[in-house]
């Protein structure tokens, strides 16, 4: 679960990380009313999950209520344009009106999880406020890293070492170790997979303030903080994610591509291999769909309808290799789906093996369906049907 800037900053505040004074507004009138009541120099920032707001003209200044109204309207008028990471772009539903800081320096600070070291890694760079990936590529030494021992946890020396190693401006030095500690506390307390401050501003009057906030929470840990379920409702799901959630699978388990061969497999690895197989056989993929482990009949039926009703599939290749997923349940799900569904019919190519495969095949046979033997065979057959 990726948080919007205003949500991330709320967590920052709770953990004692200084953030600019701000107000979250859902429209031009609200923005104008806030600035009218709080005269001063303000920044209006589109609240979206994707990056590149500055370049897209979605961050503007306002020093009067009228200006706040007009820039907010302007910002919200068009969605964020697509970029490499988010090819769909993103609608803008709200803005954050924020104190305009007298920024003297900009730095970068983040914590994420390093798979190789199996530790949280804290990263600091004196080059903040710019494309940090580019900095990382061209000046890798300017980014200092520390892999944190989870048993010992964060200790202030880590912040000191990083500040010295990344040659942070001396103005950061006093505040930085405590700030880095608060960020680590946030990272652990809320089960984050990523916390990132870019830029971490040093103001001309010597304050160190988080000028932006990127927080990604671990979906698997959300049950520990019921409040986040409410927050999640405020976050936009794209269409594919919404459909996946409706079908009862993880929001990352379904994605559409516009081709003609619908696919479904159990397990992300097999689902990806299934797509690869269809591509290798010369077909165009309609979708990615991982039905998940231990899929029961109801989930299989939902997934069937998801693909048939919501993709451009002309054929549906179901590739199940049973482990925790039992072949008989999947077969029963397919048969029930066909019996009950009011969705359009498309030809099915079924590959069903592994746990309880005999029972599954028997159920399919009773319904007049004959599964193929291998994935490659299934892919080839499906592509033939799609092209027919």
């Amino acid at each position, binding site marked *: 679960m990726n948080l919007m800037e205003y949500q991330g900053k709320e967590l920052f505040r709770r953990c004692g990380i200084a953030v600019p004074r701000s107000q979250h507004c859902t429209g031009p009138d609200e923005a104008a009313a806030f600035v009218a009541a709080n005269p001063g120099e303000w920044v209006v920032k589109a609240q979206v999950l994707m990056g590149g707001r500055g370049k897209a003209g979605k961050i503007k200044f306002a020093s009067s209520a009228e200006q706040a109204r007009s820039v907010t309207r302007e910002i919200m008028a068009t969605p964020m344009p697509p970029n490499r990471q988010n090819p769909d772009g993103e609608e803008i539903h709200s803005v954050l009106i924020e104190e305009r800081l007298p920024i003297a320096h900009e730095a970068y600070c983040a914590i994420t999880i390093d798979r190789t070291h199996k530790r949280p890694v804290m990263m600091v760079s004196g080059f903040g406020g710019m494309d940090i990936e580019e900095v*990382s590529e061209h000046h890798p030494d300017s980014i200092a890293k520390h892999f944190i021992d989870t048993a010992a946890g964060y200790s202030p020396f880590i912040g000191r070492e990083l500040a010295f190693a990344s040659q942070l401006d001396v103005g950061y030095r006093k505040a930085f170790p405590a700030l880095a500690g608060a960020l680590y506390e946030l990272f652990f307390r809320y089960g984050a997979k990523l916390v*990132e401050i870019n830029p971490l501003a040093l103001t001309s009057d010597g304050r160190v303030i988080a000028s932006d906030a990127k927080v990604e929470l671990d979906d698997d840990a959300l049950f520990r903080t019921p409040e986040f379920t409410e927050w999640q409702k405020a976050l936009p799901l794209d269409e594919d994610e919404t459909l996946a959630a409706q079908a009862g699978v993880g929001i990352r388990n379904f994605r559409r591509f516009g081709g003609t061969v619908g696919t479904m497999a159990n397990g992300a690895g097999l689902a990806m291999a299934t797509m690869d197989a269809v591509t290798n056989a010369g077909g165009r993929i309609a979708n990615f769909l991982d039905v998940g*482990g231990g899929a029961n009949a109801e989930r299989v039926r939902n997934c069937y309808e998801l693909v048939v009703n919501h993709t451009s599939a002309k054929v549906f290749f179901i590739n199940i290799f049973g482990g925790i997923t039992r072949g008989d349940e999947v077969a029963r799900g397919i048969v029930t789906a066909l019996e009950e569904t009011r969705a359009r019919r498309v030809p099915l190519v079924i590959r069903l093996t592994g746990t309880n495969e005999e029972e599954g095949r028997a159920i399919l046979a009773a319904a007049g369906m004959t599964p193929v033997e291998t994935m490659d065979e299934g892919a080839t057959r499906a592509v033939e049907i799609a092209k027919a």
Partner: protein
Amino acid sequence: MSIFLDQNSNIIVQGITGSEGSYHTARMLAYGTHIVGGVTPGKGGQKSEHGLPVFDTVKEAVDVTGATQTVIFVPPPFAADALYEAHEAGISLAVCITEGVPVHDVLKVVGATSGMRIIGPNCPGLISPGKASVGIMPGHVFSQGDVGLISRSGTLTYEVVDGLTRAGLGQSTCVGIGGDPIIGTTFVDCLREFKNDPQTKAIVICGEIGGSDEEDAAAWIGEHLAGTPVVAFVGGQNAPPGKSLGHAGAIVSGAFGTAKSKIEAFRAVGVPVAERPSQIPSLLEKALAASP
């Protein structure tokens, strides 16, 4: 021989009376695995439906049965607790099947259970064909032989093994290491064991996009496994790019993580990379024929 697991491994099941735990215990027993008991707090003193003794705590189970390995079928909020309990009870190998364990739980438990090997979480387990199976793998697709297999995926593993078995290439041990960001046992950990296993003559690695485990494995093979036939597969070449927030992940992994990077890393150390799972057996046969 085999790695991690053989017919003499004494194994307990944490969560033996739950629906998944109970179902898969029956299947593991049917495969011939030496399951000696199970743990379900509050049901100590009872017998499981398989006739196995049930204990309240892992400690008690270990004291009574002498188990050294455990397989964990408990819901995600309790998985780390189950691993800590296994560690304190002196278990040496814990297989965590549970999917959806919070990543911070895994980070902490992996850092605080030194001396115990954890496989998983979110993995299908491991199997030493003909000897024992721990986890949820469908035993009948495996056959005993001298190919070691390591895979990040569950179902894809079965797919690959099915192909090996049909081609007459039996397996020494197959380890499903799991697909989560943090896992207890990596490709390199398994490679190290396979290197020392006299039964294992060749190795298959089933990787995936994301992370740098495959690149690390390739580097290790280049350094320590020259001459051993190894074949790799990297899943997800046509997978959609994930939406990402922030840049920290990209900084950490650098150029690593793409299918391209992984395939190049394997090829650079002379490991052939299959384009699809069905090519693995023939590539392996070729590599075996070429090896001294």
